[in-house]
């Protein structure tokens, strides 16, 4: 009597707009005539293509993609210009490095693509069993088509998305793990279609005559609607609903089941796995962005240099005796060339002459620095977690230095701040509180009833309630028992006869069940699962149990000791415990029938199934009787509080984003010192907004906050703001969505701005009741606010992935809730506490290293090219180079490359211990401090100054003095070599002066490259090289060194060019020392306190006007402005994941 009803319902559903659907003919069998029109639909085959290139298009496509990068394109243009026009520099000088960069990148990308091809092939060619004419056939996976019936054995991966028809297990279920899909390693149960679960053999299944209608492929892994029409002998087909519990996804693995049969519905690139194959968007660091800006500045300098020289050349040449002096006549063809063409060629030639100012080698060095530098994170022993045997992971090395720039941290609570290791603390039944030792195997031990809330001792009715309560805990869960006996030998211990593991996606449930029962057998007697209401047939009576968060249970309760339990729940929540409430309802058979009908109707709906189900649950779950509540503790991770405190001292704002309820989350925040005792809490919650309008609440809060902000901004930079009145904001998901929602009149930005203003003035923000997408929304909101702060998101679960992908830096905690967060993150750490070293030590180092690298590179190339520019004024703008080609080529490649690379890998301006001990040093580099315009201009001017010194020092020397002591004369190449020698030494020594951390490697590399320069020059000038058609450098270097005045001028010029920088450094340290410099001085060369510069004001010797301000704020009372614990509707709490179970009640 039940099915016709369903069918009617289905027919109604069929009338709904059913456009985007596909019909699948199981086993490619046409439906019986008259039932439906047989329309053949075309679907792609089961080939997976994740590779980017093919063998043929690799070279053009890869080159095209590489030259889309502006830098590569620029170098290509320069190279081509050098090839085409007659320029003073050889095309090899810029072609070779470019070729190197392009080739290395192409090889890397080609290798990665080859790996993808291999993986694709392995996947596409792996054999699949499927049924053809009642027989089992093996074929390659890629030949699978929609409608084929497939057999999958245990531990095999499903080759495509299948509708589960039958399994070897009698009850038509199978277990799968979706570890490679969403990271959850738990076993999930799937259910075969009711009418086909009896077909166990190939012949049986071949006899199946059915069609499936379902939606077109969608990326959502957990959503699927469809229906199956099974044609029996009668013409009337049986219609069954299909949900995601019937769908087996490609990528999932079959477990604990010998074999299953299924029919392919989505294949190849249409499977849900392929649709979820999202490529991570490229993140770029702030340093890279400023580097690009600097590049543009240098490009402008380059172009203007070339323009100036071109214009001056033609002005200078306006007199004919200069245009073509008698000793330097032009050839006939040169005379006849068009003036404009000549000018343009000259412009290009100047561009080429000065192009070294933007060196290719900088890109190579930066890439190498990032790649090699990232190993320091993976190698770090302190970040290795011995419990789990996991070390940190680096998924991208592009963002190393961004770790030193973080201003906002968004952290998940469960599993990140807390252990996600649930421990049952107590339960409260009917107002009586029980603690774990009083509970054994589901029975409250007599005489050990713990703390009583009310005086009356439990009577018989209470006994019954207790039993019901534990019964509910035993039944209301999604736990599976995994018998260890099944697992292969080595881990099995001989004496564990009954050893078993509980597997569940919710750790709370494991904790509860482990307490309640020691017998796994009892769990397997579970009768029914219907979302988070559980029906149970008990003593011939039907009970409906309901377990959930207090906010969703209390509104539905009509009976029971509501007030006492509520008080207890709230107390537990404040202590940071996770609470769950249990309620029940007794049903009579008629009610039960009604419920079944209602649910079935909702479950077969094709459209809006979710909504209809929610409505059905709403109807069923009312008038409940409250039984009691449980409290589970999720312990804080070790050193979480210490870490948060350090991060806050470092000037980083820490936000906690959690799905938990407000009280629990706030308690965790207190426990981990995010909120301190003197923190004034501001609340922006649904309940408050219900009382006042959102507008009023926001304005009131902003007024409270801004009252202090005047004094706040003044002291904020002194690094002492820790002592000030600070605010903590609590906001919940519903209030946030109200703020984010654009208003009708279009002025959407208004509330956001106000909200941001409040957040900016709060030292800590807690966002509770957040949906995963809202987490990403918050991150995006802050990221795009007007200061563009650098954000970091850290989390461990699949629900944190969206925010990890959104933030500038995403960090995954390799946690218990699967590895999905770690996989999608930029960096992964085993524990939250490792974030401290990651940011304060590694991030800090990476930042100072790469900023010095970038600035130094620009500096040394200004030094390199500016003399060349100046020389044009003395050689009639004829594009004569100052240096020999070998020097031009090797300057960036070998003479000055290694010291800076090693510096950028090894430098520690202060020791690791100091950085860890004193988090406030992190503020010194905040806001990209070392790459600000002021610093950049300083470095550029230093480069220009040095270049002027090199050039004019040598110029005056050559102009007025006989350089040798034997009267012989030096030529232009000696002049260039002299300038070059001074330059190589100055530039290297400048780096040596900047190096604070001298290991043997630094010594080796710095002195080694100077030595290399000398040896190279001796060799280069010492031999007549047969492959060169010019010998202009022959003996030039040796002759230069044999002259006394040359030595004198080299020493003088090096001293003069280094002097101002040293002076500036010393004076700045003395007069305006930064915190880092103070610490450096205190540490001293060998750890002792030396009387150095910069000890003017140390932390201990605070001036009196500053010491007054410390600790002058009395602890202001915590103004609790509102409380939100009730929340209407069925907001799923993270404690009770809604599983869409669907077995019929027996």
């Amino acid at each position, binding site marked *: 009597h039940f099915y016709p009803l369903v069918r009617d319902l289905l027919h109604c559903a069929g009338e709904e707009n059913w456009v985007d659907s596909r019909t699948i003919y199981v086993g490619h069998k046409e439906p019986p005539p008259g039932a439906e029109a047989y329309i053949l639909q075309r679907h792609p085959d089961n080939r997976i293509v994740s590779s980017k290139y093919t063998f043929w298009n690799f070279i053009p496509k890869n080159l095209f993609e590489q030259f889309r990068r502006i830098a590569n394109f620029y170098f290509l243009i320069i190279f081509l210009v050098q090839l085409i026009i007659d320029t003073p520099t050889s095309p090899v000088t810029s072609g070779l490095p470019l070729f190197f960069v392009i080739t290395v990148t192409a090889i890397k990308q080609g290798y990665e693509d080859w790996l993808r091809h291999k993986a694709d092939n392995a996947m596409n060619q792996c054999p699949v069993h499927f049924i053809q004419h009642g027989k089992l056939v093996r074929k390659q996976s890629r030949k699978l088509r929609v409608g084929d019936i497939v057999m999958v054995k245990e531990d095999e991966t499903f080759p495509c998305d299948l509708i589960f028809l039958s399994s070897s297990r009698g009850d038509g279920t199978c277990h799968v793990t979706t570890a490679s899909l969403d990271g959850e390693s738990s076993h999930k149960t799937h259910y075969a279609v009711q009418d086909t679960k009896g077909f166990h053999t190939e012949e049986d299944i071949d006899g199946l005559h059915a069609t499936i209608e379902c939606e077109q492929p969608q990326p959502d892994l957990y959503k699927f609607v469809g229906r199956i029409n099974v044609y029996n002998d009668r013409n009337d087909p049986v219609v069954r609903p299909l949900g995601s519990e019937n769908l087996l996804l490609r990528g999932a693995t079959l477990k604990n089941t010998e074999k299953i049969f299924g029919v392919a519905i989505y294949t190849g690139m249409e499977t849900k796995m392929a649709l979820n194959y999202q490529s991570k968007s490229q993140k770029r660091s702030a340093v890279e962005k400023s580097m690009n800006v600097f590049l543009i500045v240098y490009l402008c300098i380059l172009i203007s240099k070339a323009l100036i020289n071109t214009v001056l050349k033609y002005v200078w040449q306006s007199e004919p005796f200069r245009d073509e002096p008698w000793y330097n006549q032009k050839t006939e063809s040169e005379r006849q060339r068009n003036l404009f063409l000549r000018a343009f060629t000259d412009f290009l030639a100047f561009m080429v002459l000065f192009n070294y100012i933007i060196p290719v080698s900088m890109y190579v060095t930066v890439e190498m620095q990032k790649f090699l530098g990232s190993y320091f994170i993976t190698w770090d022993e302190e970040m290795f977690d011995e419990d789990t045997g996991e070390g940190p992971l680096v998924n991208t090395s592009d963002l190393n230095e961004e770790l030193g720039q973080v201003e906002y941290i968004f952290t998940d609570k469960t599993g990140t701040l807390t252990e996600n290791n649930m421990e049952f603390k107590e339960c409260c039944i009917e107002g009586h509180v029980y603690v774990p030792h009083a509970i054994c195997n589901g029975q409250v031990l007599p005489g050990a009833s713990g703390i009583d809330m009310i005086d009356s001792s439990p009577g018989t009715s209470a006994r019954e309630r207790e039993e019901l309560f534990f019964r509910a805990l035993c039944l209301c869960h999604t736990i599976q028992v995994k018998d260890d006996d099944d697992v292969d030998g080595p881990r099995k211990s001989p004496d564990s006869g009954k050893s078993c593991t509980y597997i569940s996606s919710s750790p709370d449930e494991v904790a509860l069940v482990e307490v309640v029962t020691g017998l796994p057998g009892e769990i397997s007697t579970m009768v029914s699962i219907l979302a988070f209401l559980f029906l149970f047939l008990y003593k011939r009576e039907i009970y409906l149990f309901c377990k959930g968060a207090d906010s969703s249970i209390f509104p539905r309760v009509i009976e029971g000791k509501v007030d006492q339990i509520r008080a207890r729940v709230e107390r537990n929540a404040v202590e940071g415990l996770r609470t769950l409430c249990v309620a029940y309802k007794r049903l009579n058979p008629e009610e039960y029938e009604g419920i079944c009908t209602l649910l079935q109707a909702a479950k077969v709906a094709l459209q809006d199934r979710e909504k209809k189900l929610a409505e059905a649950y709403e109807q069923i779950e009312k008038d409940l009787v409250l039984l009691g509540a449980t409290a589970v503790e999720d312990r804080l991770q070790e050193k979480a509080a210490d870490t948060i405190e350090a991060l806050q001292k470092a000037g980083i704002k820490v936000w906690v984003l959690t799905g938990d309820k407000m009280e629990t989350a706030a308690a965790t925040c207190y426990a981990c010192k995010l909120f301190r005792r003197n923190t004034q809490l501001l609340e922006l919650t649904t309940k408050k907004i219900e009382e006042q309008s959102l507008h009023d609440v926001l304005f009131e809060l902003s007024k409270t906050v801004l009252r202090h902000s005047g004094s706040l901004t003044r002291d904020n930079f002194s690094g002492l703001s820790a002592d000030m009145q600070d605010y903590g904001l609590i906001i919940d998901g519903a209030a946030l969505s109200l703020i984010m929602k654009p208003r009708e009149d279009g002025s959407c930005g208004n509330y956001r701005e106000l909200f941001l203003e409040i957040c900016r003035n709060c030292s800590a923000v807690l966002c509770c009741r957040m949906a995963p997408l809202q987490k990403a929304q918050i991150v995006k909101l802050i990221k795009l606010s007007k200061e563009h702060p650098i954000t970091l998101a850290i989390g461990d679960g699949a629900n944190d992935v969206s925010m990890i992908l959104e933030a500038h830096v995403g960090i995954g905690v390799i946690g218990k809730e699967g590895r999905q967060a770690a996989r999608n993150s930029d960096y992964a750490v085993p524990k939250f506490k490792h974030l401290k070293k990651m940011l304060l030590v590694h991030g800090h180092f990476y930042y100072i290293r790469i900023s010095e690298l970038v600035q130094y590179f620009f500096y040394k190339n200004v030094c390199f090219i500016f003399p060349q520019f100046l020389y044009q004024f003395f050689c009639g703008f004829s594009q004569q180079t100052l240096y020999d080609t070998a020097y031009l080529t090797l300057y960036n490649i070998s003479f000055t490359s290694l010291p800076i690379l090693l510096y950028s890998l090894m430098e520690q301006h202060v*020791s690791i211990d100091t950085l860890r001990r004193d988090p406030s040093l992190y503020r010194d580099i905040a806001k990209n401090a070392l790459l600000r315009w002021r610093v950049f201009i300083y470095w550029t001017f230093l480069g220009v100054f040095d270049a002027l010194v090199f050039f004019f020092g040598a110029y005056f020397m050559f102009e007025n003095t006989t350089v040798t002591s034997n*009267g012989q004369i030096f030529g232009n190449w000696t002049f260039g070599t002299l300038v070059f020698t001074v330059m190589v030494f100055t530039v290297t020594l400048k780096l040596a002066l900047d190096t604070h951390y001298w290991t043997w490697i630094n010594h080796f590399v710095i002195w080694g490259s100077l030595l290399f320069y000398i040896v190279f020059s001796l060799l280069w000038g010492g031999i007549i090289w047969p492959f060169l058609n010019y010998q202009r450098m022959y003996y030039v270097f040796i002759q230069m060194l044999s002259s006394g005045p040359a030595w004198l001028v080299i020493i003088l010029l090096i001293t003069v060019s280094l002097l101002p920088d040293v002076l500036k450094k010393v004076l700045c340290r003395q007069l305006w020392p930064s915190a880092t410099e103070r610490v450096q001085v205190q540490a001293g060369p060998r750890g002792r306190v030396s009387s150095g510069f910069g000890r003017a004001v140390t932390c201990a010797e605070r001036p009196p006007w500053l010491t007054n301000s410390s600790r002058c704020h009395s602890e202001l009372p915590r103004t609790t402005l509102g409380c939100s614990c009730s929340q209407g509707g069925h907001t799923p709490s993270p404690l009770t994941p809604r599983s869409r179970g669907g077995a019929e009640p027996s």
Partner: protein
Amino acid sequence: MKRISEDYQSRLPDNTALKQQQLPAYRLQLSATGVLSGFFAAGAFCLGMGIILILSAKSIKEIEVKYTKICANCAELREDATNFDKECTCSIPFYLSETMKGNVYMYYKLYGFYQNLYQYILSRSNSQLLGTDLKDVGNCAPFSNSHDGTPIAPCGAIANSIFNDTIILSYNLNSSIPIEVPMLKSKITWWTDKYVKFQNPSSINLSSAFAGTTKPPYWSKPVYELDEEDPGNNGFLNDDFIVWMRTAAFPTFKKLYRRLNRIQYFIEGLPAGNYSLLIFDFPVTRFKGEKSVVLSTLTWSGGSSLFLGLAYTVTGAVTWLAAFSMMAIHLMLKKKKMLFIQD
């Protein structure tokens, strides 16, 4: 359990100093005493050096005689191509007030002659100058071949524009008979240039070696007749030619022309007195520059310019100034700090 521990071991990072960024290192710190003493030392060195250099430069005697204007007539005469082989000399008298002791070097100095033009520097043939391939004139445009196509030796713009003034210095001992001052033309080039970089083509005699080539258009004599007095100083091995071929870095430059042969009257150097320069001319008005002759003695620190000495002195002074001001600031801050502690 074994498998797990092995796995664990392999994943545990190595505890090497390099990987843990714990390499033993010296921390470079700019301590007050270190920086101050460094500055004072550097300043002292520079000051000392500067004074020594100034003194040594002062001891050098140098005299420059410009002759462009005086020889203008000759130049004009030479401009006209028809007067090509007419001899024109001009004589410039000058007075040397002090004796130039020691080795005296004679330079010619050109103003506004751009030997460093890009095309000019390229316009030479190294294989020709090495004597290996006389016909290789590929880089020498526009002075690679004569009108009839014979290759020029030495080819190129540099060789073509060689400085061909002949300068003779005479000493008027007692205002009646001028004595020609004996000069050496050897060792005015780099040794390597003369003996490695420049080679004559091998043959019985030079004229046959250069057969099949022609002289550069501006030259009056072929390359193998450059020095009529010394047959070994001809061809590509001519010292004046080699000196000219080393291109100068700036448009104003001097090149070594002769060394004083210290014999007879000139054993001590050039005595004070009246001298005159006899010059056989070089076309100069066309490039609108100036020419002069420089006579100079030398010391270990080079020529007579004060530049190096002054630069050292100024640097030393500035360094000391900086050092003193740093010391003052340091002491001031120290005093202030003491006050704080007393408070």
